[in-house]
């Protein structure tokens, strides 16, 4: 049998996943059919806040091909309330969250009634025949107005639009000083308000659900990131026995946090399939997806930073308003809390205060979107460091250097009490500055300013870190999160020496099949090709906490490593028995057990066959090498990096063009550089999209006016530049592979780099902020002195039915 001679970890393996995906042999949920399957369509509220006074389904019921029509009242007794797993404070206010609205709608796009028909076309026809009367209620859209005395209420029963206020204070926690004192004592105070616009995750595969109640278990296929959590939540929400539910996430076309959810659509499909005793499929349209699937970001950030004249920051105070939308979904309230520990970023701030107030509005609920809390935090602090530098008149990189944690200071306990295990900000920055030609670009910027060039050059910096790899269960528990952060894996050694690896991670584009195969190939010394990765089905991979928060490699793959270690431990006495030696005399390397100092050896594959035969095993040894492990890390992982962006801003039109984008990321040991680079590229695109293009806009009535891809400006290939990506490698000391997460890093880092570059290009014209997205109109207005200070709440700047524009960054 062959064994791997060279290490798989670090190799740019082409992906195993691709073979099916590039040939169309895919198993997206909407591709699946089962015998007797029916189709469901959903009628959604066109208004943002109203009482439902009448639902007339009679015409729909007699529409051709229709088997059933249900309104909220029909499911009210069994639908329960959609789960929120993160009650951030004991007194958090959480309204009931019906899957199908019963007597009131609270956001435009909320499900009101459903039709189940023979075909999807017939279901869609009949949905249009449902007649609903709405009595309008006052619409709550603005967070500040929502908190004012006497404000209209989203949920009158709660008596307030405030869900909760969560506070961290370093003085109270004993992890740092008192911010108010620091501000009082400071030589310089910088105050800014930033707006994190509302974004749409916009995974390419619309959500789809198929429920088959005809088997021994109710089986749900869903385009979800979280099959395991979904199964548990269905059981807990609907009172259905957990062992009677099976959830399968087949091929899933992207998620970005947008499929980290227990959705109304999943619950409704489940209930109607069970009631009709027939398989039912529901696939959303894109406009349904944009309206009803949860949104991301949407914060107002007020920041106060105190410093000495030498640039040393002495304190940071963060006051947030976070828009929950109309309901608290799975982790909605916790998203801003994930950012709470990251405002201090890579810096040694001695005093820190964070307070976040979560606010209800009549908008689509928000929840996790790539980065979830950390992009918001990183944006705020990296913008503030630039503002401090401008205030002091020193180079923005110099201000960062004066404040960041030096390499020799790791492990470092931050003002939030987190322990950063490793990092080398100097190395990443030095490499990035060189690749970027920072000095050369600064000289060109000076020349253009001198010449009053209509196209000005701006340089933007983002020296970011983030906490990911969720995570130590105890820490999640201390934050009142409803579950742990462990991950599970199992390894099955087949008689022919092939290997099945079961993982609780649930990939939806990340390439786990390839990366996990590389990890296992190294651990067991079996060929990459001989390994099959099994995931995404609660029957075949029964335990897991799924994929989000850049946790799969740092938690899920480490569970795989631990399981592999147990396989070897089990094989050792058998190998010793077969080689007629003591286990102490054996060494294991590259798939072979060798008697030290001899040629006498046997392979793990040979042992797998011997175990299968079980003819000659040592006394008392069970005939199996199969092993499983559940891993709970001691700490988060803290990837970091330095991102540099050069933008050209046309001062006459406001158009922004990204001229170059350089990033040097440190994600620890890299399993597959190809996959890592791909994650960085995609992350950058999404972060840049927030800076320049995307915004979910509601009109005064609460209607989402950017509910299609014609209006919500997802960047195309023509809108984005080519990136230069590089790495430094400072291994994490928290896990045995030395790996850190990479899935969210690019998104977290890039947004402030771009906006800093835009502001830097026009700062000499009196501009100190441009609200995101930095559209030509907003940039032009900023240059021309109209609402350039970040208070522009104009709703006309993004979208507008133009679809993708090619006049932006190229």
């Amino acid at each position, binding site marked *: 049998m062959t064994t791997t001679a060279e290490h798989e970890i670090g190799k740019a393996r*082409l*992906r195993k*996943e691709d*073979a099916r995906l590039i040939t169309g042999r895919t198993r997206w949920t909407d591709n699946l059919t089962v015998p007797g399957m029916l189709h469901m369509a959903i009628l959604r509220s066109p208004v943002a806040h109203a009482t439902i006074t009448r639902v007339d389904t009679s015409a729909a019921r007699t529409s051709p091909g229709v088997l059933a029509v249900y309104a909220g009242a029909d499911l009210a007794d069994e639908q329960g309330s959609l789960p929120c797993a993160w009650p951030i404070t004991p007194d958090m206010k959480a309204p009931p969250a019906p899957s199908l609205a019963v007597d009131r709608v609270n956001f435009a796009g909320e499900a009101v009634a459903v039709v189940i028909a023979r075909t999807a076309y017939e279901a869609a026809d009949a949905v249009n025949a449902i007649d609903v009367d709405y009595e309008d209620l006052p619409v709550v859209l603005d967070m500040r107005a929502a908190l004012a005395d006497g404000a209209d209420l989203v949920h009158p029963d709660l008596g307030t639009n405030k869900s909760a206020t969560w506070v961290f204070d370093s003085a109270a926690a004993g992890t740092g000083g008192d911010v108010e004192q620091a501000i009082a004592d400071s030589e310089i105070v910088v105050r800014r308000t930033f707006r994190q616009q509302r974004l749409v995750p916009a995974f390419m595969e619309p959500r789809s659900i198929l429920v088959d109640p005809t088997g021994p278990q109710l089986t749900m296929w869903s385009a979800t990131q979280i099959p395991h959590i979904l199964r548990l939540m269905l059981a807990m929400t609907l009172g259905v026995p957990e062992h009677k539910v099976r959830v399968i996430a087949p091929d899933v076309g992207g998620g970005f946090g947008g499929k980290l959810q227990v959705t109304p659509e999943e619950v409704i499909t489940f209930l109607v399939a069970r009631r009709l005793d027939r398989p039912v499929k529901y696939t959303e349209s*894109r406009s349904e997806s944009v309206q009803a699937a949860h949104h991301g970001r949407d914060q107002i950030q007020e920041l106060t930073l105190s410093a000495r004249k030498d640039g040393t920051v002495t304190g940071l105070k963060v006051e947030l308003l976070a828009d929950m939308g109309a309901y608290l979904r799975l982790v909605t309230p916790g998203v801003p809390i994930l950012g709470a520990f990251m405002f201090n970023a890579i810096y040694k701030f001695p005093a820190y205060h964070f307070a976040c107030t979560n606010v209800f509005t009549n908008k689509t609920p928000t929840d996790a979107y790539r980065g979830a809390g950390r992009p918001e935090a990183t944006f705020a602090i990296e913008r503030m460091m630039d503002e401090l530098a401008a205030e002091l008149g020193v180079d923005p990189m110099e201000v960062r250097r004066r404040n960041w944690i030096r390499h020799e200071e790791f492990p470092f306990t931050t003002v939030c009490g987190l322990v950063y295990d490793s990092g080398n900000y100097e190395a990443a920055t030095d490499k990035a500055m060189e690749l970027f030609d920072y000095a050369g670009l600064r000289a060109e910027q000076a020349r253009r300013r001198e010449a009053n060039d209509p196209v000005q050059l701006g340089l933007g910096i983002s020296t970011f870190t983030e906490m990911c790899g969720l995570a130590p269960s105890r820490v999640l528990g201390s934050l009142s999160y409803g579950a742990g952060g462990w991950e599970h894996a199992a390894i099955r050694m087949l008689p022919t020496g092939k290997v099945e690896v079961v993982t609780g991670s649930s990939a939806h584009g990340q390439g786990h099949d390839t990366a996990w195969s590389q990890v296992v190939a190294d651990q067991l010394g079996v060929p990459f090709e001989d390994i099959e990765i099994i995931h995404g089905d609660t029957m075949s991979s029964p335990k897991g906490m799924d994929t989000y928060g850049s946790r799969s490699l740092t938690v899920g793959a480490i569970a795989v490593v631990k399981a592999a270690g147990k396989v070897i431990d089990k094989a050792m006495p058998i190998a010793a028995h077969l080689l007629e030696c003591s286990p102490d005399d054996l060494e294991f390397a590259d798939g072979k057990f060798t008697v030290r100092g001899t040629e006498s050896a046997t392979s793990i594959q040979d042992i797998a066959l011997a175990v299968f035969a079980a003819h000659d095993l040592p006394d008392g040894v069970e005939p199996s090498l199969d092993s499983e492990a559940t891993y709970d890390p001691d700490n988060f992982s803290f990837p970091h990096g330095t991102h540099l962006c050069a933008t050209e801003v046309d001062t006459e039109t406001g158009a922004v063009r990204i001229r170059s984008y350089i990033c040097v990321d440190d994600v620890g040991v890299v399993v597959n550089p190809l996959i890592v680079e791909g994650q960085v*590229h995609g992350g950058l*695109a999404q972060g840049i999209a927030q800076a320049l293009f995307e915004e979910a806009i509601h009109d005064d009535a609460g209607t989402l006016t950017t509910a299609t891809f014609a209006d919500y400006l997802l960047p*195309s290939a023509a809108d984005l530049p*080519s990136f230069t990506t590089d790495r430094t490698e400072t291994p994490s000391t928290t896990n045995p592979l030395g790996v850190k997460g990479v899935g969210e890093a690019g998104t977290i880092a890039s947004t402030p780099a771009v906006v800093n570059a835009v502001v830097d290009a026009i700062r000499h014209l009196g501009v100190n902020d441009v609200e995101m997205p930095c559209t030509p109109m907003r940039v032009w207005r900023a240059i021309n002195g109209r609402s350039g200070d970040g208070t522009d709440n104009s709703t006309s700047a993004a979208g507008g039915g133009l679809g993708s524009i090619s006049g932006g960054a190229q």
Partner: protein
Amino acid sequence: MRITVTVDGTTYTDDVEPRLLLVHYLRERLGKVGTVVGCDTSNCGACTVHLNGHSVKSCSVLAVQADGGEITTIEGIGRDGTLHPVQQAFHDNHALQCGFCTPGMIMQSIDLLADHPDPDEQQIRHGLEGNLCRCTGYQNIVRAVRQAADTMRPGAGPEAERITAQHAVGGE
């Protein structure tokens, strides 16, 4: 209405509703689920197929409009178990992650290369403007299309397939 279409080399005759979209005909009636639907405004391009040799967004074509036509989908571009050079290039360059946009992206890339056999980066980026990808940031897709252009250019095939003066019948 009755239509007859050839899809990936097989001819089908079916009665269809006039309103049936080509993409739904392909997916629901023919089981050609390799072609997918990503939006409802013809912006995303995930449903791109070739109709009579040119790329179309099959969500924006009625099945009846394809009557008498020849359609090629992602499932019909490989030959004898060999990937099309564009498929191969997408694999080689890690030009896909979740893979949902990939069928449309590949079909559009083939069309792009027919128009521009030797495209520069901007031609590739503009040629793919109607196909959205949320995972890759497009950089590796651009790289893949460029590689495919190289492998598809005349004379770039394997030695065995090269027509030299000796082998050519009729000659110049």
